[in-house]
């Protein structure tokens, strides 16, 4: 077996990480100065924002301290839809060098814009993200995030290149080629969604390729919620270190936050993205450590400043300083998105809870899908789980025991009954980007 040696980036301090270690008072001063500038910029250039400020009797001079941010109006996803396509831009098109758009699974997509400086800020954030998980010059990054309107591909690409790493712009899909490239090019780091990485692992094993024999040592996984159990499973199965990266197009794309080598919370690059956590119902700030909705303000983005953007992501601040020495605040990994939540028989359920329950059973793999139906006015939840070689038995009794175990684990976690259906491998469609976990058939008649 080949030893997984670190690239040049690991071990020494990487100069691009310098802003991660700013003394806190300095960081707060910087944030306030940038907040005042960005509020002024938005007020003067974005009609939607000015109207909302005026309605509250606010003007750019109302921001005297960082705490004053709570006076500002929120921005929600619908604001981006209502002003489609360019209504929230604060720069003339002549200054805008890039447009991206969301996948827009429901209705119109949302469009985001970048000036040259914005691309640079984004690039520096992604450089710092890679550096935080030990990737640097000398590393070969296989970038399997989709290239195109989605921010994942280009965001990771620019960051990796600027860092001096070698970037393979393979984009998503063509799994067999991904595995060939990984092996033949001696890839040391991979960036993709966690569900796609699982698919890569599965396919590699079918092709007789053991990840432990490859040079890949780091995975940068994001764009969808995944659980801590899933991380451990991925690390065991592949021998790599799996890091969670956070980002969203509305703010910048990937690179809003990342885990460091401590893997205990994601540092937010808060010199550019100011985080708040609020109670999603009362809108009041949450106490330290209390769970709530993450709200982000872009502190330096020119083309499209986002003021108090409601991410719908549920998290909490991790208390205390991080062992890595970064002064950037940390948030807990996003296990839940308010948008992913569904209500069944009056109970709130998040797909990530189901994932954790399934993974609690030995040998199961997180290839699962949730199907919601309504029978005689009653909601039914079926959780389809693929049978793996590890859990399969030639004895009916053993499979039935597995089935019962999965159902009771789910009931224990969710507090309601869910029917488990064991399905054949590959019965659940593999995603090359974000996995589709929930199929809701309740409104189809």
């Amino acid at each position, binding site marked *: 077996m080949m030893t997984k040696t670190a690239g040049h980036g690991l071990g020494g301090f990487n100069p691009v990480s310098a802003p991660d270690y700013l003394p806190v008072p300095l960081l707060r001063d910087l944030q306030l100065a940038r907040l005042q500038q960005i509020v002024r910029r938005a007020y003067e250039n974005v009609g939607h924002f000015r109207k909302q400020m005026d309605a509250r009797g606010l003007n750019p001079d109302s921001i005297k301290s960082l705490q004053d941010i709570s006076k500002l109006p929120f921005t929600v996803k619908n604001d981006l839809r209502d002003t489609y396509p360019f209504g929230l831009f604060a720069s003339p098109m002549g200054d805008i060098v890039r447009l991206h758009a969301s996948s827009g699974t429901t209705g119109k997509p949302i469009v985001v814009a970048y000036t040259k400086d914005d691309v640079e800020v984004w690039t520096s954030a992604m450089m710092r993200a890679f550096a935080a998980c030990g990737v640097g010059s000398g590393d070969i990054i296989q970038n399997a995030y989709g290239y195109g309107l989605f921010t994942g591909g280009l965001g990771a690409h620019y960051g990796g290149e600027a860092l001096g790493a070698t970037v393979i712009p393979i984009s998503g899909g063509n799994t067999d080629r991904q595995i060939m490239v990984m092996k033949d090019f001696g890839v040391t780091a991979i960036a993709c969604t966690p569900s796609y990485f699982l698919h890569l692992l599965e396919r590699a094993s079918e092709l007789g390729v053991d990840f432990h024999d490859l040079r890949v040592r780091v995975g940068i996984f994001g764009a969808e919620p995944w659980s801590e159990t899933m991380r451990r499973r991925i690390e065991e199965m592949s021998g790599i270190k799996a890091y969670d990266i956070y980002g969203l197009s509305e703010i910048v794309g990937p690179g809003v936050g990342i885990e460091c080598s401590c893997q205990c919370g994601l540092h937010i690059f808060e010199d550019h993205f100011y985080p708040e956590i609020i109670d999603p119902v009362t809108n009041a700030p949450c106490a330290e450590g209390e769970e709530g909705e993450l709200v982000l303000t872009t502190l330096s983005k020119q083309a499209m400043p986002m003021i108090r953007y409601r991410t719908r992501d549920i998290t909490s601040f991790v208390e205390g300083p991080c062992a890595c020495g970064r002064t950037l605040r940390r948030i807990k990994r996003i296990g839940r998105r308010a948008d992913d939540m569904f209500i069944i028989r009056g109970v709130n359920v998040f797909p990530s809870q189901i994932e954790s329950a399934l993974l609690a059973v030995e040998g199961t793999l997180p290839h699962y899908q949730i199907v919601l139906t309504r029978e005689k006015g009653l909601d039914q939840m079926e959780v389809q789980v693929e049978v793996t070689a590890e859990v399969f038995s*030639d004895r009916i009794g053993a499979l039935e025991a597995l089935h019962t175990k999965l159902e009771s684990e789910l009931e224990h976690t969710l507090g309601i009954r869910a029917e488990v259906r064991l399905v*054949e*491998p590959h019965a659940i469609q593999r995603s090359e980007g974000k996995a589709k976990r929930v199929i809701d058939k309740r409104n189809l008649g």
Partner: protein
Amino acid sequence: MKIHQLSLFLENKPGQLTAPCRELADAGIDIRTLSLADTQQFGILRLIVSDWKRGYELLRDKGYVVKDTEVVAIEVPDRPGGLLEVLKVFEKSAVNIEYMYAFTFGRGDKAVLIFRFDDPDAAIALLNSAGINVVGSVEVYNR
């Protein structure tokens, strides 16, 4: 003498049996005998094939969950009480029969029973000492 049985996970829905059987047929692998155990949701197809190694690799590479299990084949006279003689061997032993199924070679008055024991080695020792004929792999795979 233990022989190799392939077990396959199948969902219980129409047409599920066809695909794996076609794979084996296309590869020229003969199914000697099979048994299907099923519940409302899923089934387990148990196969004895002419070339279990090739069959195993083929099905695994085609993406099936397939397991190789060692079972014991026993030849019994095809007459009333034939099975009973075998079962009596295990009556007072600690060996447990997980499941069994039967077929004939199409050879005179003999039937072959396939047993899945929790402890196949102990079972074979008991059968040998009782003078019961355990069928070898060559006989089962290459009729």
